[in-house]
Protein backbone atom coordinates (compact mmCIF):
# COMPACT_ATOMS: atom_id res chain seq x y z
CA UNK A 1 0.00 0.00 0.00
CA UNK A 2 1.47 3.34 -1.08
CA UNK A 3 0.81 6.23 1.22
CA UNK A 4 1.44 9.94 0.96
CA UNK A 5 1.66 11.82 4.26
CA UNK A 6 1.19 15.57 4.30
CA UNK A 7 3.64 17.11 6.71
CA UNK A 8 3.79 20.78 7.65
CA UNK A 9 6.50 22.74 9.37
CA UNK A 10 5.07 25.10 11.98
CA UNK A 11 6.44 27.51 14.59
CA UNK A 12 7.12 25.72 17.86
CA UNK A 13 3.82 25.63 19.74
CA UNK A 14 5.61 26.71 22.92
CA UNK A 15 7.34 29.67 21.32
CA UNK A 16 5.99 33.23 21.15
CA UNK A 17 4.21 33.22 17.80
CA UNK A 18 3.31 36.35 15.90
CA UNK A 19 2.14 37.75 12.58
CA UNK A 20 4.26 40.08 10.44
CA UNK A 21 3.09 43.68 10.83
CA UNK A 22 3.31 44.37 7.09
CA UNK A 23 1.58 41.62 5.13
CA UNK A 24 -0.07 40.01 8.15
CA UNK A 25 1.34 36.60 7.31
CA UNK A 26 2.78 34.29 9.93
CA UNK A 27 6.30 35.17 11.02
CA UNK A 28 8.09 31.89 10.27
CA UNK A 29 11.61 33.26 10.23
CA UNK A 30 12.20 34.44 13.77
CA UNK A 31 10.98 31.41 15.71
CA UNK A 32 12.02 27.83 16.28
CA UNK A 33 10.18 25.54 13.94
CA UNK A 34 9.04 21.95 14.41
CA UNK A 35 7.00 19.34 12.59
CA UNK A 36 3.33 20.02 13.24
CA UNK A 37 2.75 17.68 16.15
CA UNK A 38 -0.26 15.82 14.82
CA UNK A 39 1.63 15.18 11.58
CA UNK A 40 4.00 12.96 13.57
CA UNK A 41 0.99 10.72 14.29
CA UNK A 42 0.12 10.75 10.59
CA UNK A 43 3.66 9.65 9.69
CA UNK A 44 3.60 6.97 12.40
CA UNK A 45 0.29 5.57 11.15
CA UNK A 46 1.58 5.42 7.59
CA UNK A 47 4.74 3.62 8.75
CA UNK A 48 2.71 1.08 10.71
CA UNK A 49 0.53 0.30 7.70
CA UNK A 50 3.63 0.03 5.52
CA UNK A 51 5.40 -2.25 8.01
CA UNK A 52 2.37 -4.55 8.10
CA UNK A 53 1.57 -4.56 4.39
CA UNK A 54 4.57 -3.29 2.47
CA UNK A 55 4.52 -0.39 0.05
CA UNK A 56 6.07 3.04 0.21
CA UNK A 57 5.56 6.12 2.34
CA UNK A 58 6.09 9.48 0.63
CA UNK A 59 6.23 12.73 2.55
CA UNK A 60 4.70 15.78 0.86
CA UNK A 61 5.44 19.22 2.25
CA UNK A 62 4.72 22.69 1.01
CA UNK A 63 6.85 25.33 2.66
CA UNK A 64 9.98 27.44 2.54
CA UNK A 65 13.47 26.04 2.08
CA UNK A 66 13.85 25.58 5.80
CA UNK A 67 11.02 23.01 5.80
CA UNK A 68 13.64 20.48 4.65
CA UNK A 69 14.54 20.00 8.34
CA UNK A 70 11.03 18.76 9.02
CA UNK A 71 11.04 16.55 5.93
CA UNK A 72 14.30 14.99 7.14
CA UNK A 73 12.73 14.20 10.46
CA UNK A 74 9.87 12.36 8.75
CA UNK A 75 12.37 10.48 6.59
CA UNK A 76 14.46 9.58 9.64
CA UNK A 77 11.37 8.14 11.29
CA UNK A 78 11.24 5.71 8.36
CA UNK A 79 9.43 7.28 5.39
CA UNK A 80 10.94 6.29 2.03
CA UNK A 81 11.04 9.51 0.04
CA UNK A 82 9.77 13.06 -0.03
CA UNK A 83 8.46 15.77 -2.29
CA UNK A 84 9.01 19.36 -1.26
CA UNK A 85 6.94 22.03 -3.00
CA UNK A 86 8.84 25.23 -2.37
CA UNK A 87 8.54 28.52 -4.17
CA UNK A 88 8.48 32.20 -3.18
CA UNK A 89 5.28 32.52 -5.21
CA UNK A 90 3.48 30.32 -2.66
CA UNK A 91 4.14 32.64 0.28
CA UNK A 92 0.97 33.78 1.98
CA UNK A 93 -1.25 31.17 0.30
CA UNK A 94 -4.35 30.40 2.31
CA UNK A 95 -5.88 26.97 2.87
CA UNK A 96 -7.88 26.94 -0.37
CA UNK A 97 -4.80 27.84 -2.42
CA UNK A 98 -2.65 25.38 -0.54
CA UNK A 99 -5.07 22.58 -1.32
CA UNK A 100 -4.91 23.59 -4.99
CA UNK A 101 -1.10 23.45 -5.02
CA UNK A 102 -0.86 20.21 -3.01
CA UNK A 103 -3.61 18.70 -5.14
CA UNK A 104 -1.55 19.40 -8.25
CA UNK A 105 1.38 17.50 -6.78
CA UNK A 106 -0.81 14.65 -5.57
CA UNK A 107 -2.16 14.21 -9.10
CA UNK A 108 1.34 13.23 -10.17
CA UNK A 109 1.87 10.69 -7.38
CA UNK A 110 0.60 7.14 -7.18
CA UNK A 111 -1.01 6.33 -3.87
CA UNK A 112 -3.70 4.36 -2.13
CA UNK A 113 -4.00 6.65 0.85
CA UNK A 114 -3.23 10.23 1.72
CA UNK A 115 -2.87 10.74 5.46
CA UNK A 116 -2.98 14.18 7.02
CA UNK A 117 -2.96 15.43 10.59
CA UNK A 118 -6.34 16.73 11.68
CA UNK A 119 -5.08 20.32 11.94
CA UNK A 120 -1.95 22.44 12.02
CA UNK A 121 -1.05 24.36 15.15
CA UNK A 122 -0.31 27.58 13.27
CA UNK A 123 -3.44 28.30 11.23
CA UNK A 124 -5.78 25.87 12.97
CA UNK A 125 -7.98 25.62 9.87
CA UNK A 126 -8.43 21.84 10.09
CA UNK A 127 -9.72 21.74 6.53
CA UNK A 128 -6.94 20.26 4.39
CA UNK A 129 -8.36 16.74 4.29
CA UNK A 130 -11.76 18.02 3.18
CA UNK A 131 -10.35 20.49 0.66
CA UNK A 132 -8.18 17.85 -0.98
CA UNK A 133 -11.04 15.40 -1.06
CA UNK A 134 -13.08 17.94 -3.02
CA UNK A 135 -10.23 18.81 -5.35
CA UNK A 136 -9.25 15.24 -6.11
CA UNK A 137 -12.73 13.76 -6.09
CA UNK A 138 -11.66 11.14 -3.57
CA UNK A 139 -13.46 10.10 -0.39
CA UNK A 140 -12.43 11.66 2.90
CA UNK A 141 -12.40 9.94 6.27
CA UNK A 142 -11.72 12.47 8.99
CA UNK A 143 -10.88 12.38 12.69
CA UNK A 144 -9.54 8.82 12.63
CA UNK A 145 -8.52 7.20 15.89
CA UNK A 146 -7.98 3.85 14.18
CA UNK A 147 -7.28 2.93 10.57
CA UNK A 148 -7.61 -0.47 8.91
CA UNK A 149 -6.67 -0.70 5.26
CA UNK A 150 -7.20 -3.91 3.31
CA UNK A 151 -7.39 -4.56 -0.40
CA UNK A 152 -9.17 -1.64 -1.95
CA UNK A 153 -11.00 -0.63 1.21
CA UNK A 154 -10.06 1.55 4.12
CA UNK A 155 -12.02 1.64 7.36
CA UNK A 156 -11.61 4.08 10.21
CA UNK A 157 -12.99 4.65 13.64
CA UNK A 158 -14.05 8.27 13.53
CA UNK A 159 -13.90 9.94 16.92
CA UNK A 160 -17.09 11.76 17.94
CA UNK A 161 -18.08 13.60 21.11
CA UNK A 162 -20.08 10.59 22.33
CA UNK A 163 -18.04 7.67 21.04
CA UNK A 164 -16.98 6.71 17.57
CA UNK A 165 -18.43 5.90 14.19
CA UNK A 166 -17.05 3.27 11.81
CA UNK A 167 -16.61 4.79 8.35
CA UNK A 168 -15.50 2.94 5.24
CA UNK A 169 -14.39 4.06 1.78
CA UNK A 170 -12.72 2.66 -1.28
CA UNK A 171 -9.15 3.68 -2.04
CA UNK A 172 -7.65 5.99 -3.02
CA UNK A 173 -8.90 7.96 -0.05
CA UNK A 174 -7.88 10.80 2.21
CA UNK A 175 -7.68 10.26 5.95
CA UNK A 176 -7.10 12.75 8.70
CA UNK A 177 -5.88 11.37 12.01
CA UNK A 178 -5.96 12.58 15.60
CA UNK A 179 -3.63 12.13 18.55
CA UNK A 180 -5.41 9.12 20.00
CA UNK A 181 -4.42 6.98 17.04
CA UNK A 182 -0.91 5.95 18.10
CA UNK A 183 2.31 6.93 19.84
CA UNK A 184 4.81 8.30 17.31
CA UNK A 185 8.28 6.79 17.36
CA UNK A 186 11.54 8.65 17.78
CA UNK A 187 13.83 8.57 14.81
CA UNK A 188 16.64 6.10 15.46
CA UNK A 189 20.27 7.07 15.06
CA UNK A 190 20.51 4.78 12.03
CA UNK A 191 17.28 6.26 10.67
CA UNK A 192 18.77 9.74 10.89
CA UNK A 193 21.82 8.63 8.95
CA UNK A 194 19.75 6.76 6.36
CA UNK A 195 17.48 9.78 5.85
CA UNK A 196 20.33 11.75 4.37
CA UNK A 197 20.47 9.54 1.31
CA UNK A 198 16.73 9.10 0.76
CA UNK A 199 15.24 10.69 -2.38
CA UNK A 200 13.98 14.23 -1.88
CA UNK A 201 12.44 15.98 -4.87
CA UNK A 202 12.10 19.75 -4.71
CA UNK A 203 9.47 21.27 -6.98
CA UNK A 204 8.83 24.88 -7.95
CA UNK A 205 5.30 25.95 -8.84
CA UNK A 206 6.28 25.58 -12.49
CA UNK A 207 7.55 22.02 -11.96
CA UNK A 208 4.30 21.09 -10.25
CA UNK A 209 2.07 22.61 -12.93
CA UNK A 210 0.68 25.11 -10.44
CA UNK A 211 -0.61 28.34 -11.98
CA UNK A 212 1.39 31.07 -10.30
CA UNK A 213 -1.50 33.50 -10.62
CA UNK A 214 -3.68 31.36 -8.40
CA UNK A 215 -1.37 31.14 -5.40
CA UNK A 216 0.30 33.54 -3.01
CA UNK A 217 -0.91 36.33 -0.81
CA UNK A 218 -2.12 38.73 -3.51
CA UNK A 219 -4.45 36.16 -5.06
CA UNK A 220 -5.67 34.65 -1.81
CA UNK A 221 -9.46 34.39 -1.61
CA UNK A 222 -9.29 35.04 2.14
CA UNK A 223 -7.38 37.95 3.63
CA UNK A 224 -6.31 38.74 7.16
CA UNK A 225 -7.82 42.20 7.55
CA UNK A 226 -6.76 43.05 11.04
CA UNK A 227 -5.12 41.42 14.03
CA UNK A 228 -4.18 42.33 17.55
CA UNK A 229 -1.87 40.66 19.99
CA UNK A 230 -3.16 38.70 22.92
CA UNK A 231 -3.69 41.04 25.90
CA UNK A 232 -1.03 40.61 28.59
CA UNK A 233 -1.96 38.36 31.47
CA UNK A 234 -3.73 40.13 34.29
CA UNK A 235 -2.78 39.62 37.90
CA UNK A 236 -4.98 37.02 39.57
CA UNK A 237 -7.52 37.81 42.23
CA UNK A 238 -6.68 36.58 45.71
CA UNK A 239 -9.56 35.37 47.83
CA UNK A 240 -8.82 35.53 51.53
CA UNK A 241 -10.62 32.88 53.50
CA UNK A 242 -12.45 34.49 56.37
CA UNK A 243 -14.79 31.61 56.90
CA UNK A 244 -16.59 32.37 53.65
CA UNK A 245 -13.84 31.29 51.19
CA UNK A 246 -15.94 28.51 49.73
CA UNK A 247 -18.87 30.82 49.08
CA UNK A 248 -16.63 33.41 47.41
CA UNK A 249 -15.08 30.80 45.11
CA UNK A 250 -18.51 29.45 44.21
CA UNK A 251 -19.70 33.01 43.47
CA UNK A 252 -16.69 33.65 41.28
CA UNK A 253 -17.18 30.42 39.33
CA UNK A 254 -20.87 31.27 38.88
CA UNK A 255 -20.04 34.81 37.69
CA UNK A 256 -17.72 33.35 35.04
CA UNK A 257 -20.42 30.83 34.13
CA UNK A 258 -18.21 27.84 35.03
CA UNK A 259 -20.99 26.45 37.24
Amino acid sequence: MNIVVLVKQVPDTWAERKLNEGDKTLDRASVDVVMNEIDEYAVEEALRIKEAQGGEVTILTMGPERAVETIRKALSMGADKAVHLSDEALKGSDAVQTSYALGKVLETLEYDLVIVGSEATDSRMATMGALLSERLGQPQLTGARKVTAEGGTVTIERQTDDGYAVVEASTPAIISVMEKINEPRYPSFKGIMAAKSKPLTTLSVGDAGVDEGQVGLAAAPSQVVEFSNKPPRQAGQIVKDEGDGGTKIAEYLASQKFV
Partner: protein
Amino acid sequence: MRPVVRSLPTPEAEALLELTRDLVEHEVLPRAGEMESRSEFPRELFRTLGKAGLLGLAYPEQDGGGGQPYEVYLQVLEELGRGWAGLAVGVSVHTLSCFPLAQWGSDEQRERWLPDLLGGELLGAYCLSEAASGSDAAALTTRAVRDGDDYVVDGAKAWVTHGGHADFYNLMVRTGGPGPAGISCLFADKHTPGLLPQPPEKKMGMRSSPTATILLEGARVPADRLIAAEGEGFRIAMSALDGGRLGIAAVAVGVAQAALELSVSYAKERKQFGKAIASFQGVEFMLADMATQIEAARALYLTAARLKDAGRPYGPQASMAKLFATDTAMKVTTDAIQVLGGAGFVEDFAAERYFREAKVMQIFEGTNQVQRLVVGRSLTRG
Protein backbone atom coordinates in the same frame (compact mmCIF):
# COMPACT_ATOMS: atom_id res chain seq x y z
CA MET B 1 21.31 27.80 29.74
CA ARG B 2 22.19 26.96 26.17
CA PRO B 3 23.29 23.39 25.42
CA VAL B 4 26.93 22.60 26.13
CA VAL B 5 29.23 23.73 23.33
CA ARG B 6 30.80 20.61 21.91
CA SER B 7 33.39 19.89 19.31
CA LEU B 8 32.12 16.80 17.51
CA PRO B 9 34.02 14.96 14.81
CA THR B 10 31.25 14.35 12.25
CA PRO B 11 27.83 15.58 11.15
CA GLU B 12 26.48 12.18 12.18
CA ALA B 13 27.75 12.80 15.70
CA GLU B 14 25.97 16.16 15.66
CA ALA B 15 22.74 14.40 14.64
CA LEU B 16 23.24 11.80 17.36
CA LEU B 17 23.70 14.41 20.07
CA GLU B 18 20.62 16.23 18.83
CA LEU B 19 18.59 13.02 19.02
CA THR B 20 19.93 12.42 22.53
CA ARG B 21 18.97 15.90 23.71
CA ASP B 22 15.52 15.42 22.20
CA LEU B 23 15.09 12.15 24.10
CA VAL B 24 16.38 13.68 27.33
CA GLU B 25 14.03 16.64 27.00
CA HIS B 26 10.90 14.67 26.19
CA GLU B 27 11.38 11.19 27.65
CA VAL B 28 13.95 11.40 30.42
CA LEU B 29 13.54 14.70 32.29
CA PRO B 30 9.77 14.45 32.73
CA ARG B 31 10.16 11.07 34.48
CA ALA B 32 13.45 11.24 36.34
CA GLY B 33 12.43 12.93 39.60
CA GLU B 34 9.25 10.92 40.16
CA MET B 35 10.65 7.52 39.30
CA GLU B 36 13.80 8.20 41.26
CA SER B 37 11.82 8.97 44.38
CA ARG B 38 9.73 5.84 43.86
CA SER B 39 12.88 3.71 43.28
CA GLU B 40 11.29 2.59 40.03
CA PHE B 41 13.48 1.03 37.35
CA PRO B 42 12.70 2.58 33.94
CA ARG B 43 12.85 -0.62 31.88
CA GLU B 44 10.62 0.85 29.13
CA LEU B 45 12.87 3.85 28.79
CA PHE B 46 15.83 1.53 28.14
CA ARG B 47 13.78 0.00 25.32
CA THR B 48 13.14 3.45 23.92
CA LEU B 49 16.87 4.19 24.04
CA GLY B 50 17.55 0.80 22.48
CA LYS B 51 15.18 1.45 19.58
CA ALA B 52 16.80 4.82 19.05
CA GLY B 53 20.13 2.98 18.78
CA LEU B 54 21.73 4.29 21.97
CA LEU B 55 22.56 1.00 23.67
CA GLY B 56 25.28 -0.21 21.34
CA LEU B 57 26.85 3.03 20.16
CA ALA B 58 30.46 2.20 20.88
CA TYR B 59 30.46 -1.13 19.01
CA PRO B 60 31.03 -1.84 15.30
CA GLU B 61 28.15 -1.51 12.90
CA GLN B 62 28.68 -5.02 11.52
CA ASP B 63 27.89 -6.37 15.00
CA GLY B 64 24.71 -4.31 15.22
CA GLY B 65 26.28 -1.37 17.03
CA GLY B 66 26.38 2.30 16.18
CA GLY B 67 30.02 2.40 15.04
CA GLN B 68 30.73 5.52 17.06
CA PRO B 69 34.08 6.47 18.56
CA TYR B 70 34.25 6.64 22.35
CA GLU B 71 34.63 10.39 22.06
CA VAL B 72 31.07 10.59 20.73
CA TYR B 73 29.53 7.79 22.79
CA LEU B 74 30.74 9.44 26.01
CA GLN B 75 29.19 12.77 25.11
CA VAL B 76 25.88 11.00 24.53
CA LEU B 77 26.29 9.44 27.96
CA GLU B 78 27.02 12.85 29.47
CA GLU B 79 23.80 14.26 28.02
CA LEU B 80 21.87 11.29 29.40
CA GLY B 81 23.57 11.83 32.78
CA ARG B 82 22.47 15.45 32.72
CA GLY B 83 18.91 14.14 32.48
CA TRP B 84 19.07 11.19 34.84
CA ALA B 85 22.17 9.66 36.39
CA GLY B 86 20.53 6.32 37.16
CA LEU B 87 19.59 5.86 33.53
CA ALA B 88 22.96 6.96 32.18
CA VAL B 89 24.84 4.68 34.56
CA GLY B 90 22.59 1.89 33.30
CA VAL B 91 23.60 2.63 29.72
CA SER B 92 27.25 2.71 30.75
CA VAL B 93 26.93 -0.59 32.61
CA HIS B 94 25.11 -2.19 29.70
CA THR B 95 27.83 -1.02 27.32
CA LEU B 96 30.47 -2.40 29.68
CA SER B 97 28.55 -5.68 29.94
CA CYS B 98 28.64 -6.14 26.18
CA PHE B 99 32.41 -5.73 26.13
CA PRO B 100 33.58 -9.22 27.17
CA LEU B 101 31.49 -10.87 24.45
CA ALA B 102 32.21 -8.22 21.81
CA GLN B 103 35.94 -8.09 22.41
CA TRP B 104 36.80 -11.59 23.59
CA GLY B 105 33.94 -13.83 22.45
CA SER B 106 34.36 -16.42 19.67
CA ASP B 107 32.82 -15.68 16.28
CA GLU B 108 30.09 -18.19 17.05
CA GLN B 109 29.29 -16.59 20.42
CA ARG B 110 29.29 -13.12 18.94
CA GLU B 111 26.98 -14.07 16.09
CA ARG B 112 24.62 -15.78 18.47
CA TRP B 113 24.19 -13.11 21.12
CA LEU B 114 25.77 -9.82 20.16
CA PRO B 115 23.08 -8.38 17.83
CA ASP B 116 20.40 -8.59 20.52
CA LEU B 117 22.73 -7.11 23.13
CA LEU B 118 23.70 -4.17 20.97
CA GLY B 119 20.29 -3.76 19.38
CA GLY B 120 18.75 -2.71 22.67
CA GLU B 121 16.35 -5.60 23.25
CA LEU B 122 18.41 -7.09 26.04
CA LEU B 123 19.94 -5.50 29.11
CA GLY B 124 23.23 -6.59 30.65
CA ALA B 125 24.91 -6.88 34.03
CA TYR B 126 28.53 -7.24 35.08
CA CYS B 127 29.39 -9.26 38.15
CA LEU B 128 32.89 -8.81 39.53
CA SER B 129 32.66 -7.58 43.14
CA GLU B 130 31.88 -9.82 46.05
CA ALA B 131 31.10 -9.03 49.66
CA ALA B 132 34.72 -9.61 50.68
CA SER B 133 36.46 -8.55 47.48
CA GLY B 134 35.85 -5.07 46.09
CA SER B 135 38.99 -3.12 45.31
CA ASP B 136 40.94 -6.37 45.67
CA ALA B 137 38.90 -7.93 42.89
CA ALA B 138 41.37 -10.75 42.20
CA ALA B 139 40.56 -12.23 45.62
CA LEU B 140 37.10 -13.29 44.48
CA THR B 141 35.94 -16.67 45.69
CA THR B 142 32.86 -17.57 43.61
CA ARG B 143 33.78 -20.97 42.28
CA ALA B 144 32.96 -22.59 38.94
CA VAL B 145 33.63 -26.31 38.47
CA ARG B 146 33.36 -28.03 35.12
CA ASP B 147 30.78 -30.83 35.16
CA GLY B 148 30.17 -32.43 31.78
CA ASP B 149 28.93 -29.74 29.39
CA ASP B 150 28.31 -27.22 32.18
CA TYR B 151 30.09 -25.14 34.74
CA VAL B 152 28.51 -25.42 38.16
CA VAL B 153 28.82 -22.08 39.94
CA ASP B 154 28.59 -21.46 43.68
CA GLY B 155 29.06 -18.17 45.50
CA ALA B 156 27.61 -14.66 45.54
CA LYS B 157 28.34 -11.56 43.46
CA ALA B 158 27.69 -8.23 45.13
CA TRP B 159 26.66 -4.72 43.99
CA VAL B 160 25.34 -5.91 40.66
CA THR B 161 23.74 -3.07 38.70
CA HIS B 162 20.51 -4.29 37.02
CA GLY B 163 20.59 -7.34 39.31
CA GLY B 164 17.18 -8.98 38.97
CA HIS B 165 16.34 -6.99 35.82
CA ALA B 166 19.18 -7.91 33.49
CA ASP B 167 18.78 -10.45 30.68
CA PHE B 168 22.38 -11.65 30.92
CA TYR B 169 25.13 -11.62 33.52
CA ASN B 170 28.90 -11.58 33.03
CA LEU B 171 30.11 -13.73 35.92
CA MET B 172 33.74 -13.46 36.99
CA VAL B 173 34.39 -16.78 38.69
CA ARG B 174 37.28 -18.82 39.97
CA THR B 175 37.98 -21.89 37.83
CA GLY B 176 41.61 -22.29 38.86
CA GLY B 177 43.99 -21.45 41.71
CA PRO B 178 44.22 -18.23 43.73
CA GLY B 179 45.01 -14.83 42.22
CA PRO B 180 44.17 -13.29 38.85
CA ALA B 181 45.26 -16.28 36.79
CA GLY B 182 42.55 -18.50 38.27
CA ILE B 183 39.65 -16.31 37.15
CA SER B 184 37.34 -16.92 34.17
CA CYS B 185 34.40 -15.11 32.61
CA LEU B 186 31.03 -16.79 32.02
CA PHE B 187 28.25 -15.21 30.02
CA ALA B 188 25.16 -16.40 31.87
CA ASP B 189 21.54 -16.10 30.83
CA LYS B 190 19.06 -14.74 33.40
CA HIS B 191 17.16 -18.03 33.27
CA THR B 192 20.22 -20.00 34.42
CA PRO B 193 18.96 -22.44 37.06
CA GLY B 194 20.50 -21.53 40.43
CA LEU B 195 21.19 -17.89 39.45
CA LEU B 196 19.20 -16.11 42.14
CA PRO B 197 18.95 -12.31 42.27
CA GLN B 198 18.34 -11.06 45.81
CA PRO B 199 16.11 -8.10 46.78
CA PRO B 200 17.63 -4.77 45.72
CA GLU B 201 19.77 -2.74 48.10
CA LYS B 202 18.21 0.33 49.73
CA LYS B 203 20.52 3.08 48.57
CA MET B 204 21.30 6.70 49.33
CA GLY B 205 20.91 7.70 45.68
CA MET B 206 20.34 6.37 42.16
CA ARG B 207 17.45 4.43 43.60
CA SER B 208 15.90 3.86 40.22
CA SER B 209 18.95 1.83 39.22
CA PRO B 210 18.59 -1.52 40.96
CA THR B 211 21.65 -2.92 42.72
CA ALA B 212 21.46 -6.45 44.03
CA THR B 213 23.46 -9.43 45.15
CA ILE B 214 23.30 -12.41 42.82
CA LEU B 215 23.37 -15.70 44.68
CA LEU B 216 24.75 -18.62 42.73
CA GLU B 217 23.63 -21.93 44.14
CA GLY B 218 24.76 -24.77 41.97
CA ALA B 219 24.03 -22.54 38.99
CA ARG B 220 24.57 -24.52 35.79
CA VAL B 221 26.07 -22.40 33.02
CA PRO B 222 26.69 -24.25 29.73
CA ALA B 223 30.40 -24.48 28.99
CA ASP B 224 29.90 -22.89 25.55
CA ARG B 225 29.22 -19.69 27.50
CA LEU B 226 32.82 -19.42 28.68
CA ILE B 227 34.28 -16.23 27.19
CA ALA B 228 37.81 -16.72 25.80
CA ALA B 229 39.78 -19.33 27.75
CA GLU B 230 39.85 -20.34 31.39
CA GLY B 231 42.12 -17.98 33.33
CA GLU B 232 41.43 -15.00 31.04
CA GLY B 233 38.64 -13.64 33.23
CA PHE B 234 40.61 -11.08 35.19
CA ARG B 235 42.19 -9.60 32.08
CA ILE B 236 38.74 -9.36 30.47
CA ALA B 237 37.27 -7.78 33.59
CA MET B 238 39.99 -5.16 33.85
CA SER B 239 39.95 -4.22 30.17
CA ALA B 240 36.18 -3.77 30.34
CA LEU B 241 36.60 -1.52 33.35
CA ASP B 242 38.94 0.91 31.59
CA GLY B 243 36.14 1.79 29.18
CA GLY B 244 33.58 1.64 31.98
CA ARG B 245 35.54 4.19 33.97
CA LEU B 246 35.31 6.65 31.14
CA GLY B 247 31.56 6.04 31.06
CA ILE B 248 31.29 6.98 34.72
CA ALA B 249 33.45 10.05 34.14
CA ALA B 250 31.04 11.20 31.43
CA VAL B 251 27.96 10.55 33.55
CA ALA B 252 29.55 12.46 36.45
CA VAL B 253 30.16 15.44 34.17
CA GLY B 254 26.51 15.23 33.11
CA VAL B 255 25.30 15.32 36.72
CA ALA B 256 27.61 18.24 37.49
CA GLN B 257 26.34 20.04 34.39
CA ALA B 258 22.74 19.55 35.52
CA ALA B 259 23.63 20.92 38.96
CA LEU B 260 25.32 23.94 37.38
CA GLU B 261 22.34 24.66 35.14
CA LEU B 262 19.98 24.46 38.09
CA SER B 263 22.25 26.74 40.14
CA VAL B 264 22.51 29.35 37.40
CA SER B 265 18.79 29.50 36.76
CA TYR B 266 18.03 29.66 40.48
CA ALA B 267 20.64 32.36 41.13
CA LYS B 268 19.19 34.49 38.32
CA GLU B 269 15.65 34.13 39.70
CA ARG B 270 16.23 34.36 43.43
CA LYS B 271 16.27 37.92 44.73
CA GLN B 272 17.78 39.15 47.99
CA PHE B 273 18.46 42.74 49.00
CA GLY B 274 16.52 43.77 45.95
CA LYS B 275 18.55 41.97 43.31
CA ALA B 276 19.23 38.55 41.88
CA ILE B 277 21.73 36.62 43.98
CA ALA B 278 23.63 35.85 40.75
CA SER B 279 24.68 39.48 40.72
CA PHE B 280 26.57 39.07 44.00
CA GLN B 281 30.17 38.23 43.31
CA GLY B 282 30.25 35.61 46.06
CA VAL B 283 27.65 33.59 44.18
CA GLU B 284 28.79 34.42 40.67
CA PHE B 285 32.34 33.28 41.39
CA MET B 286 31.02 29.99 42.76
CA LEU B 287 29.16 29.47 39.51
CA ALA B 288 32.27 30.36 37.53
CA ASP B 289 34.36 27.85 39.46
CA MET B 290 31.72 25.15 38.99
CA ALA B 291 31.63 25.76 35.23
CA THR B 292 35.42 25.78 34.95
CA GLN B 293 35.83 22.49 36.78
CA ILE B 294 33.14 20.87 34.65
CA GLU B 295 34.80 22.02 31.45
CA ALA B 296 38.14 20.66 32.70
CA ALA B 297 36.58 17.31 33.60
CA ARG B 298 34.95 17.10 30.19
CA ALA B 299 38.25 17.86 28.48
CA LEU B 300 39.96 15.15 30.53
CA TYR B 301 37.54 12.36 29.67
CA LEU B 302 37.66 13.41 26.02
CA THR B 303 41.45 13.26 26.03
CA ALA B 304 41.35 9.70 27.34
CA ALA B 305 38.59 8.80 24.87
CA ARG B 306 40.57 10.12 21.92
CA LEU B 307 43.58 8.02 22.98
CA LYS B 308 41.34 4.96 23.17
CA ASP B 309 39.82 5.75 19.77
CA ALA B 310 43.32 6.02 18.31
CA GLY B 311 44.13 2.56 19.67
CA ARG B 312 46.72 3.89 22.10
CA PRO B 313 47.05 2.94 25.79
CA TYR B 314 44.73 5.07 27.90
CA GLY B 315 44.45 3.30 31.26
CA PRO B 316 46.05 6.02 33.43
CA GLN B 317 44.15 8.76 31.59
CA ALA B 318 40.88 6.86 32.09
CA SER B 319 41.64 6.67 35.80
CA MET B 320 42.49 10.37 35.92
CA ALA B 321 39.26 11.20 34.13
CA LYS B 322 37.14 9.05 36.44
CA LEU B 323 38.88 10.43 39.51
CA PHE B 324 38.70 14.07 38.49
CA ALA B 325 35.20 14.00 36.98
CA THR B 326 33.61 12.30 39.96
CA ASP B 327 35.43 14.48 42.51
CA THR B 328 34.27 17.45 40.44
CA ALA B 329 30.69 16.16 40.46
CA MET B 330 30.84 15.88 44.26
CA LYS B 331 32.24 19.40 44.63
CA VAL B 332 29.87 20.98 42.11
CA THR B 333 26.76 19.32 43.50
CA THR B 334 27.77 20.35 47.03
CA ASP B 335 28.17 23.94 45.83
CA ALA B 336 24.84 23.73 43.99
CA ILE B 337 23.11 23.06 47.30
CA GLN B 338 24.95 26.06 48.75
CA VAL B 339 23.76 28.31 45.90
CA LEU B 340 20.18 27.18 46.40
CA GLY B 341 20.44 27.57 50.17
CA GLY B 342 17.48 26.03 52.00
CA ALA B 343 15.90 25.19 48.67
CA GLY B 344 18.90 23.01 47.94
CA PHE B 345 18.21 20.88 51.00
CA VAL B 346 14.62 19.95 50.14
CA GLU B 347 13.31 17.52 47.60
CA ASP B 348 11.37 20.19 45.68
CA PHE B 349 14.60 20.89 43.79
CA ALA B 350 16.89 18.32 42.23
CA ALA B 351 20.07 19.69 43.86
CA GLU B 352 19.94 17.24 46.77
CA ARG B 353 19.36 14.37 44.35
CA TYR B 354 22.39 15.31 42.27
CA PHE B 355 24.46 15.44 45.47
CA ARG B 356 23.38 11.95 46.48
CA GLU B 357 24.03 10.66 42.98
CA ALA B 358 27.50 12.19 42.81
CA LYS B 359 28.67 10.45 45.98
CA VAL B 360 28.50 6.92 44.68
CA MET B 361 30.45 7.88 41.58
CA GLN B 362 33.53 8.36 43.74
CA ILE B 363 33.08 4.74 44.80
CA PHE B 364 31.95 2.45 41.99
CA GLU B 365 33.90 1.25 38.93
CA GLY B 366 37.00 1.43 41.12
CA THR B 367 37.08 3.79 44.10
CA ASN B 368 38.90 7.04 43.59
CA GLN B 369 41.61 5.63 45.82
CA VAL B 370 42.07 2.77 43.34
CA GLN B 371 42.20 5.31 40.51
CA ARG B 372 45.00 7.15 42.30
CA LEU B 373 46.74 3.81 42.67
CA VAL B 374 46.53 3.23 38.92
CA VAL B 375 47.79 6.73 38.14
CA GLY B 376 50.53 6.50 40.77
CA ARG B 377 51.78 3.16 39.50
CA SER B 378 51.89 4.46 35.95
CA LEU B 379 54.25 7.17 37.19
CA THR B 380 56.51 5.17 39.46
CA ARG B 381 56.59 1.69 37.94
CA GLY B 382 56.51 2.45 34.24
